[in-house]
């Protein structure tokens, strides 16, 4: 290859990369603010690019509490803790691969169903991992009737987020 091509190629590539680096800095910042609004909406595994992609945002606790409010409002909790019934949403737990939030259905103090409101969805791969792990974690939770369940191998982050959110839902139900 001619020297001119190499020189020109290196300069052009460097320019393109610098532009990319500069542009790349901006959305990473805006994405964090977007994550706070994105996760409160509670739409689970839509693979949008911007919303769910922030790393370990500090805004997660805000979004978690706001969504758990909406969860508890739907509960019809009455009577003693042993015969509690209703639907309880756990706090959204922020993981490296996106927020995880689960909701439990309780009938007479017994967990009858666990549904994932949000699962890790930073990219196609983490989405797929969590899609595979969720049924296993659900089964484990229904059997154990608690958040003391085994993590699914290969889905460590999803499992951690799942159990944390599950525990907060159980706490909310007062089981």
């Amino acid at each position, binding site marked *: *290859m*001619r020297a*001119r*091509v190499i020189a*020109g*190629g*290196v300069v*052009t*590539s*460097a320019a*393109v*990369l610098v*532009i*990319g*680096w500069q*542009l*790349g800095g901006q*959305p*990473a910042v*805006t*994405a964090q603010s977007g994550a706070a609004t994105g996760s409160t909406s509670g739409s689970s595994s839509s*693979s*949008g*690019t*911007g919303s769910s*992609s*922030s*790393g370990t945002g500090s805004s997660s606790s805000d979004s978690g509490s706001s969504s758990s409010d909406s969860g508890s409002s739907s509960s019809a909790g009455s009577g003693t803790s042993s015969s509690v019934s209703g639907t309880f949403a756990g706090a959204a737990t922020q993981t*490296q691969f996106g927020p995880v939030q689960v909701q439990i259905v309780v009938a007479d103090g017994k967990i009858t169903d666990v549904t994932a409101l949000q699962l890790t969805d*930073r*990219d*196609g*791969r983490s989405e*797929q*991992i969590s899609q*595979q792990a969720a049924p296993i974690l659900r089964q484990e939770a229904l059997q154990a009737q608690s958040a003391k369940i085994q993590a699914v*191998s*290969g*889905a*460590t*982050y999803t499992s951690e987020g799942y159990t944390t959110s599950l525990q907060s839902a159980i706490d909310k139900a007062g089981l």
Partner: protein
Amino acid sequence: MIDTARPTSTPPTTGPFRGTAAPAEPLEVAAVRRRRAGRRRAATVDLLGILAWASAAMAVTLWLVTPGSHSVSGVGGWLTDAGIVAGLIGTDLVLVMLVLAARVPLIDRVFGQDNAIAVHRSLGKPVLYLLLAHGLLLTLGYSASSGSGPIAETIALFSTPDMPLAYLSLGLFVAVVVTSLVAVRRRLPYEAWHVIHLLSYAAVLVALPHMLSVGSVLAHGTWQRVYWIALYVLALGLIALYRIVLPIVVTLRHRIRVVAVEPIAPGVVSIHLAGRDLDALGARGGQYGVWRFWTAKTWWHAHPVSFSAVPGRDRARITVRDLGAGSARLGRITPGTTVSLEGPYGLFTSQARTAPFLALVASGIGITPVRALLEDTDLRPGEATVLLRGSDTSQQYLWQETAALAESTGSRLYAMVGNRARSGESWMTEDDLRRGVTLRSVFPRLLESDLYVCGPRAWSDLVVREARLAGVPEHQIHQERFES
């Protein structure tokens, strides 16, 4: 020994010669025009090269602008990032390789298809390393992030949708590159290598699903996804257009068939062809086509063979030596056989000239493009000098025709017959080496000449090496590489 070959009075076998009238344009003016055209070609080549570089950078940039792509820290994050970048650059270069192999007319005209294939080859190994690094780094990165071992991570990846296809793609790429490495390729029959090479298309295609579903950069509804799909459509579209559609159109339009097979030396045959509007092929003297002869025994083998004469309106001629098993069978094809053609290709033409004078060196079957080039060039007396080389008298086929062409254009012609010197690495005979013959003594105006060399690879490399040492600028050296 060098002697001026005796001009022959025997008329040539194929039609009247073209370009015997000396052009009116003064030599210096023509040289300036050629030099300018040469610079334009070089600038286009540079631009295409820069574009290829920029496309690799663009692949990385599109990843950088993807929100959150490179904000992950930690060892696992860095490994993952490096793996993604390796995969993106590797994929981009695979597409560049496809374009280089697509025989795009623009690339052939400014760079030459043989040069394009040389670049294609040189990219093979680096691309494979990038793709292997992509798989390895991502596996390590993911396992570092998730805390599971690399093997568990591989199993997890394997059960992710589209990933088994991605592993298949990687396996195919390994197979394609390994079989293409020259050492292995010499041990493999050409056809086996070719069939395996076709698998690279499959490798490219089966890698696509995991990029689109698993890759975070190519998520639904992003313009990154649009860009990448456009690149794939471009690369595969060029292949489909110029390697499949265009050859079919050319073949159907010109309806070429064999008229006669004429043995002209031991193991050398001239194949006379007839067809419709063959002059509309636009074949220049010195170009080659990729030919396929539709008989039961030969249809599966495509032969890159030079035109040994400039095609007329309904006649063309190619000359073949039995270099391989497939070529040997060509001597036995019968008149009437249907022929399909890809091409014409090649920059071994007078269009590629950049200097005032012309120096042609041919050995063995390498005479075919040189003879056609001489026929197709408008020459002033004394402008061109031809040196024909053969190891013995049986290799003097087409020499009489070439001598006649040289005489009619007022060109000097030399012949050098005998085995290559044993006393040193030389393209000359022992006698001539001892006598102190050099390229510059044969071609006194070598430095102001375009040097066209065609012959066996090892031999022509030696000629080119001497020319470079003598100080011939690179743009004045034109080498036709005869390889299967």
